[in-house]
């Protein structure tokens, strides 16, 4: 018979939820945006500032930005781990403060600097681990609670132990870690590069890092797949505390002083850097690379606005707006996901 009577070509049935090509495009675009939006933001800001200020794009100034960003970058790295697990660590600023004071006291007491530094880091890890254990063993409802507690406890102890006074004039050998340079490059900057590289490997190339993402992506599924969720969470908070103590070493070295107010409010800058760097408060998403960019964006904005004689008060306004804008992008992305899910049902 004629062609017309032939059965229509058999079509492969489209499984429900198989994305159509526009959906795939949207996904690709969203991924691209997530990966490169922070970098794009950094470049645009830098280019704009280099036109606005002749001093901005000088070697000295760029190095300066890196150095100024280094403490925030260290805290942000710990915060990143925590935020990937869908948590938050409010205590990093205070842990920095307490380690800073104890470190300075040890140095003043004549303890060799290497021993003091290691002891300070051990203190940071211990305090962070306490956060993790409070969260997982006491089954506190949200990491906000133990870390808010620790934020007050550590800050209070820093004042009690120091009597409220800064402890200055630290030994020369120690100051190298905060104020020294190697071939014009500040030691903190080298430290940041090394530590960031290590954590990049940790998060992307080890089973521990894999577990961290799995817990943030779906805690229940991670647990039911045999991942030791409580142990991993404790590890994450311990690392965050440890990195805060490394921040204390850098800060004390740079300022030649250990003082109880060190790192006051720094936890919020760290959270801001992580979020600007594309991590999601919903957990499961975030990269070391993005967090570095996030910390640098904050450094560049502060530095550039200072060069332009913008008052610190107005700087706060700008940084606040940038944080909200960055999270708004995160929300848009989440909403896109939700739409697709609804669409499938």
């Amino acid at each position: 018979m004629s062609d017309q009577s032939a059965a229509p070509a058999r079509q492969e049935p489209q499984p429900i939820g198989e994305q159509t090509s526009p959906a795939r495009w949207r996904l690709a675009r969203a991924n691209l945006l997530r990966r490169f939006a922070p970098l794009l933001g950094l470049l645009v800001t830098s280019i704009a500032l280099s036109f606005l200020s002749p001093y901005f794009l000088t070697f000295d100034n760029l190095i300066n930005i890196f150095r100024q960003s280094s403490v925030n970058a260290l805290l942000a790295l710990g915060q990143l781990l925590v935020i990937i697990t869908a948590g938050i660590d409010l205590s990093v600023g205070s842990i920095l403060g307490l380690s800073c004071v104890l470190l300075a006291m040890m140095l003043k007491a004549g303890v060799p600097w290497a021993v003091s530094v290691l002891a300070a880091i051990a203190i940071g890890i211990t305090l962070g681990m306490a956060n993790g254990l409070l969260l997982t063993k006491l089954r506190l409802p949200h990491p906000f609670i133990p870390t808010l507690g620790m934020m007050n406890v550590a800050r209070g102890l820093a004042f009690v132990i120091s009597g409220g006074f800064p402890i200055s004039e630290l030994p020369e050998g120690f100051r190298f870690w905060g104020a020294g340079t190697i071939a014009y490059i500040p030691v903190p900057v080298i430290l940041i590069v090394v530590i960031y590289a290590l954590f990049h490997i940790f998060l992307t190339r080890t089973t521990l890092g894999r577990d961290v993402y799995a817990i943030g992506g779906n805690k229940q599924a991670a647990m039911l797949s045999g991942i030791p969720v409580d142990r991993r969470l404790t590890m994450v908070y311990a690392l965050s505390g440890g990195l805060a103590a490394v921040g204390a070493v850098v800060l004390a070295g740079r300022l030649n002083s250990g003082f109880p107010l060190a790192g006051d409010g720094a936890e919020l800058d760290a959270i801001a850097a992580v979020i600007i760097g594309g991590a999601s408060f919903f957990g499961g998403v975030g990269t070391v690379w993005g967090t570095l960019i996030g910390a640098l964006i904050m450094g560049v904005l502060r530095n550039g606005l200072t060069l332009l004689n913008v008052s610190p008060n107005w700087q706060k306004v700008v940084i606040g707006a940038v944080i909200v804008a960055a999270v708004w992008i995160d929300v848009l992305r989440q909403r896109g996901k939700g739409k697709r899910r609804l669409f499938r049902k």
Partner: protein
Amino acid sequence: MATQDSEPLLRMEHITKSFSGVTVLDDVCFEVRPGEVHALIGENGAGKSTLMKIATGAYRADDGQIFWKDREVEIKSPHQAHQLGINIVHQELMLVPQLSVGENVFLGRHPAGRAFFRWVRWREIHGQSKSLLEDLGHRLDPRRLVGELSIAEQQLVEIARALAFRAELIIMDEPTSPLSEHETTRLFQTISGLKARGVSIVYISHRLKEIHEVADRVTVLRDGRHIVTRPVRDTSAADLVRHMVGREIGEQFSDRQSQATAEEALRVEGLTAGGKFSDINFAVRRGEIVGLAGLVGAGRTELVETLFGAGEAEAGRVFLDGKPITIRTPMDAVRHQLALVADDRKAKGLVLGASVRFNIALAASNKLARWRLFLNATREKELAGRLTRELRIKTPNIEQPVMYLSGGGQQKVVLAKWLSADSKVFILDEPTRGIDVGSKAEIYDLIRRLAQRGVAIILVSSELEEILHLADRILVMHRGRINGELSREDATEERIMQLATGGDIN
């Protein structure tokens, strides 16, 4: 008692409803007379809940008419249903635990003054709710917080709430499933009290015994169709089971040969978890598929999750290959090469935002890694690629986030996850829920191949056909206990239903 000739209070005619192309209700008629207790029964997914959601305005019918006291009405919202006098007492109680009994009874319409501030009249709230509860035959301090009450008392608060709305029809969705026997008896007293006041009740339940105790008439739904409505005294439990199941006996035996060996893989003795299940004893051999049947709420999911270390057991012992083992966490279970394909793959099985490869390696990343620490991307890719092909997971590539896969594809990823972990005992909880027919057949095939390879399988399913099709032996649970065991030869849908509804088989 309801009179035969009284005008129906609610009449639903030719109700049709479908969700994205799947017909859930097909031309269903249903009526309730004043002062009548009308039982509505059917298998899981027969359409009972959907029909009642239409009556209470949560869903709207695609087609059909609803008459309330002989007047045609459109019920567009739960609010409108309340205004007519239709109320539902949900299976999951919809109360605010932080508020008092009285506040909950009057939630949303506290009697208040007319002054600018509209002060809440507390005395009125507490007085009225107290007398409503006393009418129901219970003394309950209206000032107590609902969160402190037992489930049975909370149910009572919901009923009082319905009466405060001047309800003439109360729908009770599986009201006795969380209750003890004593509480059940008291609920029946409450129900007869309501009847005496002229309130009609739609009683949804899986428990056929209760229906004979409490209901005047019964309606059976099956696969979204109305099967029969008749006075309860004219039916037997066996009749009702036959209507619910609908198919003839022995219709669908598959010719699959049992692969069960003599070697025992897993044995459970006296496993008990308070209120969820008690004194569970069974064993699975290598290559054997043991079906775990029962109605929703019988405690099957709780049992298998506890067995897997995700819930706390009060008593009981577990043996693997004849040796006693302790499973306190899912980690222990995975170490002993147990696998759990959980009932809700999105919530419990997958990291939805992560890739197919990530999810397949989720339970085995240690085994695949170098020195148990550094991920081995090459081996992961090989494994994920091989399993994706073997299980025919439809995905553009293994780096695709699993949230973009179909339900069947996602379930196959969950199975692949446990295959990569080399699991020896598979616990499958509703493995084909919400999956298209094609993938379903493929998953059945996979389950059989697993058994052939000597894997022991525990299969939890609410689909009787599925269990009859796959299982070598069937355990039937009822109210947290194993109520009976059927061999492959003896098993029929009717016998399973009989055991699942609390009866016994001759």
